């Protein structure tokens, strides 16, 4: 595994230039000085990993940048990527008390990035904690944020952790699924490298998809952490979905991030209106599509995307087609597609087709983006682990499942939230494993 696996494509970098350029040193200090340094700060409480926000911000103000980065990393080992990808409006910055005074919230995400950028520039490494009395050996299945956080926390405390992922590069959606203008795949890989230096082992390109594979892991490790993420993207389940030119949102994003897709032309229709749908639509625009539609069966007020994502998509020139349901995809000459749609309206909580409202959208690509399906395959193999509504049932405080040697966290437990939520799950599970090992040996 190395970032060499990612092509550093100049055109890609130009097309996906950073959404928010970093703060200059002085701007960061001025912004840090603005922070009131609240007691038991609401921003810290709102952060799923409870980063000591005023603590790291005031360290920027005094020029203690190493201390600032450590403050962040101690709470959230993926502090660098969270600084870029967190929906801060509904988390720390949304909780900033200044908003109650009609003042702009502190730019917490940008300041966190400033501290983490300084950390990278300094070439510092993450120090180990004082070693606990008990060591555990843990396999973390899935290479995304939940597993990385779990493994890093364990290794920093002197235990052993091995991250197993089916992809070539670890990092999960941080590497393959986040819009490049927010977080570059190379930055995600760099963060993983930092975690590797803590002593975390990686087994990439390895699928754990059978009972024997799990049994082998059970023999090798004391505990198993399931950071599986979600399953494949949901299918539209309409005729013509197998046509060339139909590519789901996560495939599209991974393809351009790994350099396999460099350019798009013509018209792209993205189906869905969540945050991933917006990432895909914006990507299509930046890759060169002249027209990008977002086709959503419900109304503007019901879309699940964050408000700032919606605003961003409008700025990127994405057009929205509300209350429109795709019903079929037809292949035309020269690789073009026709997406058949029909207007729908809410009727007693159900969507009802509006008569004679059919319309076809001529396009070059259809991008289903209606969410990921829950994982089912591997879960059937797991003994003693309850799966409810496609989600692994695990204790919120510890991540422990019905099988005491199995812990779980992240999207496979919470049904799909943010990177920072996954990190929090992974960290809590690691601490719980260590605690349980101590209790067992007491």
């Amino acid at each position: 595994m190395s970032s060499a696996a990612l092509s550093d494509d100049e055109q890609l970098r130009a097309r996906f230039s950073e959404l928010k350029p970093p703060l200059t040193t002085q701007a960061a200090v001025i912004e840090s000085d603005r922070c009131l340094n609240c007691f038991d700060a609401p921003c810290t409480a709102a952060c799923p990993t409870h980063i000591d926000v005023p603590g790291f911000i005031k360290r920027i103000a005094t020029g203690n940048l190493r201390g600032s980065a450590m403050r962040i990393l101690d709470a959230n080992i993926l502090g660098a990527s969270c600084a870029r990808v967190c929906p801060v409006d509904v988390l720390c910055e949304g909780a900033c008390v200044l908003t109650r005074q009609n003042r702009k919230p502190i730019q917490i995400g940008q300041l966190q990035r400033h501290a983490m950028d300084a950390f990278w520039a300094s070439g510092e490494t993450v120090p180990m904690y004082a070693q606990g009395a008990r060591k555990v050996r843990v396999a973390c299945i899935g290479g995304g944020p939940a597993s990385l956080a779990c493994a890093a926390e364990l290794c920093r405390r002197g235990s052993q952790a091995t991250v197993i992922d089916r992809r070539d590069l670890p990092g999960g959606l941080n590497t393959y699924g986040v819009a490049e203008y927010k977080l570059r795949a190379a930055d995600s890989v760099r963060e993983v490298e930092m975690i590797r230096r803590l002593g975390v082992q990686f087994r990439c390109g390895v699928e754990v998809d059978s009972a024997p594979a799990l049994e082998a892991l059970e023999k090798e490790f004391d505990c198993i952490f399931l950071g599986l993420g979600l399953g494949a993207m949901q299918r539209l389940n309409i005729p013509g979905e197998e046509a060339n030119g139909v590519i789901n949102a996560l495939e599209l994003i991974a393809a351009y991030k790994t350099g396999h897709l460099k350019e798009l032309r013509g018209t792209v229709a993205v189906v869905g209106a969540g945050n991933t749908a917006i990432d895909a639509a914006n990507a299509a625009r930046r890759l060169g599509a002249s027209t990008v539609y977002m086709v959503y069966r419900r109304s503007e007020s019901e879309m699940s995307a964050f408000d700032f994502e919606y605003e961003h998509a409008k700025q990127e020139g994405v057009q929205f087609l509300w209350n429109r349901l795709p019903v079929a995809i037809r292949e035309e000459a020269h690789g073009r597609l026709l997406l058949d749609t029909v207007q729908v309206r809410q009727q007693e909580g159900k969507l009802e087709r509006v008569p004679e409202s059919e319309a076809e959208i001529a396009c070059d690509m259809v991008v289903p983006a209606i969410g990921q399906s829950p994982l089912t395959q591997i879960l059937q193999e797991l003994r003693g682990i309850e799966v409810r509504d496609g989600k692994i049932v695990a204790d919120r405080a510890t991540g422990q499942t019905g099988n005491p040697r199995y812990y779980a966290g992240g999207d496979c437990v919470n049904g799909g939230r943010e990177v920072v939520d996954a990190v929090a799950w992974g960290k809590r599970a690691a601490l719980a494993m260590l605690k349980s090992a101590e209790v067992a040996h007491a």
Partner: protein
Amino acid sequence: MPDIEVRNFAGKINSPNPFWLASAPPTNTGEMIMRAFDAGWGGAVWKTIGEPITNVSSRYSAMDWNGQRVVGFNNIELISDRTVEQNLREMAEVKKRYPKNAVIASLMVASTREAWHEIVTRAEDAGADGLELNFGCPHGMSERGMGSAVGQVPEYAEMITAWVKEKARTPVLVKLTPNISDIRTVARAAKRGGADGLSAINTINSITGIDLDTFVPRPNVDGKSSHGGYCGPAVKPIALNMVQQILADPEAALPLSGIGGIGTWRDATEFLLLGCGTVQVCTAVMHYGYRIVEDMAEGLDNWMREKGFKTIEDFRGLSLNRVTEWKHLNLNYKIVAHIEEQKCIGCDLCHIACWDGAHQCIHLDRVTGPVDGHVELHRTPAAEEAESRTSIAETPVTRKERAVAFAQGPYPTPLERIPRVDETECVGCNLCSLVCPVDGCITMVQVDTGLKPETWDERTRGAACVTQTQAP
């Protein structure tokens, strides 16, 4: 319209307003002073005239705080580096062109009667409206037996003032150094020597800071630094205190030109309320230019209009006798903090300030149930914080979750974050209201104690009587 003109200050100095430039870089040349008068300054005290000196390069340093530049300012520049002739020639020109503005000659020469007699005569011949004797310069000049070397020894100050008065036809102001344990001793000496007025305060000895890379204090002159003179907004409270001390002392009080951290009409008005007849400004002009005087004049004018004052004399000195010795303060006056829930933004700085810096009487127990009483009954801030770190938070990803997360309660801030004051324990120290970032959120409310006013002086005198009568 209020009249802010100054008439017959220290006997016979007039100026269109009380705002003067202090003797400093902004009054270095005639050209500068004329531009200042054009901008609206009422008077200017010329950069100190004497035998020309040689300055070092790298002369100023400043203290910044919390993102604000130049909260305090420091200099090691000496008096004028231009000849006496040059300065006085320009002074004559300024007086000719600006007859209504006050031009004061700041003087500093060797401590001989002849030298002082000569410079006084020459300055007055050039048209100076008054003289300011620089007994305050704390650096460089003092090493040569001038400036604060004179101003720190009452006998010298009195003697030189008397020499000057032997010749002077215009009012003589003595500029006082604050670098002395009791500024009144020199003020009294100046009065005994016959001074017509005082200027206070000069700059305060300082080292503004040390470069953590080179280990050299600022300003760095080729690897070394020297004690400078501190001024700017940070020194205003010290200046106000000294001005009050001087003016409240009958043996020291003279017409006073107030100096120290003045940058706005508000600052200036405070000095006038203590009894100053004029004020002098330097650092704020060095920071922002002569133009700041416009708001100073307008602001004072508007304030006087609002308060119904027609002239400066209507309010000058009104605050002087509002300062008293501690022993004359009413011990039975009681105030307690009051938090306005609608204004609270939930920073809880009052809570931590009260716990760690005051009397542990502001609590976060509105939801769990109020507990009045001593510290032992309450959870510590550290325990509160630790508990909050163990809570589980999740990103509200759906619209419904966001609606719950950002739901509005009866107040802008959730009740559990609005602190509560335990009035039975509150000592009325003001700390919470000082750290609260919201205007008007925490007010100190008077509580009727039912007791008659009583000072420490009265109480101990009473006690002394009781002891006496009880004695066998």
